[in-house]
């Protein structure tokens, strides 16, 4: 493949951004999914809508809103900057953008999985003396593993592919904030850059293929253990 150093740098950055975004959002997404699946409270519909928002808004708007909130002139952005956490024009900002864009996907997958858990099994664990947190860790969590896995894969895939919000929020600086999608887009803007763009897209596809195959294999192993097949 016709891939230069810039493409490899973009791939590496994308991998880093996607992994960090996925790992960081897992706990939060899990928590939100749990609340949406299990709790009834006023404003639940609103929370659910809020979670879906990044799906609905054009990514550039999300990026724009991020810039408004975390830009160098925004109070929040200034605060974080003073704490040494620069987001705008940093790869960490790409993580934030990817995280937000993947959040609805992760929450939905986990929520569906949590909703499918029989609360009577959790009740059984409680009668055996397990406090709520233990029930969650030892019963709920393993039971929703397929959902977590699905959420993780989708979050990772989305993070690998996120473009609009990322480029708007952290710009497209080769070697710094140029993720693989940004690099692909850049290549597409140059006459004759198609092949380079497609080669990089294929690379992204391969990464996704690997992630999906891995997750499918993991899921199959867990399913087998539960069904008792060997």
């Amino acid at each position, binding site marked *: 493949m016709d891939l230069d150093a810039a493409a490899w740098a973009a791939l590496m950055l994308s991998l880093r951004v996607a992994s960090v975004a996925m790992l960081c959002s897992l706990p939060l997404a899990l928590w939100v999914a749990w609340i949406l699946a299990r709790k009834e409270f006023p404003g639940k519909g609103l929370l659910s809508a809020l979670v879906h928002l990044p799906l609905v808004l054009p990514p550039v708007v999300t990026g724009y809103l991020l810039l408004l909130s975390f830009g160098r002139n925004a109070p929040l952005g200034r605060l974080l900057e003073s704490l040494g956490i620069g987001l705008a024009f940093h790869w960490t900002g790409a993580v934030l953008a990817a995280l937000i864009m993947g959040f609805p996907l992760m929450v939905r997958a986990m929520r569906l999985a949590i909703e499918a858990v029989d609360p009577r099994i959790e009740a*059984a664990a*409680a009668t*055996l*003396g397990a406090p709520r947190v233990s029930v969650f860790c030892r019963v709920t969590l*393993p039971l929703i593993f397929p959902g977590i896995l699905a959420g993780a894969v989708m979050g990772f895939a989305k993070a690998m592919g996120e473009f609009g919000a990322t480029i708007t929020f952290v710009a497209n600086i080769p070697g710094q904030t140029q993720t693989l999608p940004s690099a692909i887009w850049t290549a597409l803007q140059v006459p004759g850059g198609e092949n380079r763009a497609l080669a990089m897209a294929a690379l992204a596809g391969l990464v996704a293929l690997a992630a999906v195959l891995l997750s499918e294999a993991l899921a199959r192993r867990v399913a087998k253990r*539960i*069904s008792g097949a060997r």
Partner: protein
Amino acid sequence: MLEVTLRHGFDGFDLDLSFSTEGGITALFGRSGAGKTTVINAVAGLLRPDMGRVVLDGETLLDTERGIWVPPHRRRLGYVFQDARLFPHLDVRRNLTFGARYAPRGSRGAGFDDVVELLGLKPLLTRAPATLSGGEKQRVALGRALLCRPRLLLMDEPLASLDGPRKQEILPYLERLRDGGLGLPILYVSHAVDEIARLADRLVLLQDGQLKAQGALFDVMADPAAVPLLGVREAGAVLEADVIAHAEDGLSTLAVRAGQLELPGVQAPIGSRVRLRVLAQDVILSRHRPEGLSSVNILAVRVEAVHPGDGPGAAIALSAGGDRLLARVTARAVRDLDLRAGMECYAIIKATTVAPGSIGR
């Protein structure tokens, strides 16, 4: 030791009852849909009733009036569910040991190896719950509850899908739990009157969510009012008897308060105390001591109450020197014999009315 007062309404079903136990095994008996599981769930903390109070060993687990509600995991009750509810993602061993780590340090209770041995779980330890047969699941659920070192066992038809021999192995174990150093109290739901007659110390009878009778097993089983609840064919008093002798012909002599009975097939050693179950339908009443029936068991009794049933029969409460008996006779026999409270007469007990399962303790 355990006091329960509950009021709860489902759509079209109202539970409203109050009972208490003194430790030992308390049986909850009632027809399908009577509210047994609902009661147990409320005791376990899985159901928050509209109103109620549950006090165990002086500790208030629930008091809707005072706003007290102890969450299930702090109640330390071992619950054997009607459906097994095993953890599908854990193998049998991990299901069994799930609760161990939450037991207070130093608490005593059933040992892993003992329970595995008793319930025959050794070959299943590495199996996934999904591959177990119905009875196997139930045994694992039983073991899991035993192994969490509870201070009260809640058992919702724990033996329903077990075979006879397995039941015969488990019942003495439950008796030992109750009687042993731990004195583990048990709230036990069962449809099998023979199981209850053998195991229970107290009996709570439910019907349509209401308490119909409660008290010591011997009292409730001998209560004519309980006959329709237990089922005409299952009703009958339970007595305690001392084994006096075993004869060559296989008959044993047992002493009850009002005299002696000769029964076949008693396995208990001489000097031990056993429980006898005398089905009401197997007691025949006679105004005069029957002659020429040398080998049958006859006790002098006094009629305590005559309780006409729904059908053609009547239930007769009898007192036999302090023991209570129950007889079911036809309405015609009531008229012919002119049965009335206070009357002295004789009860002919067919030796073999003693159901095998009901000889225990």
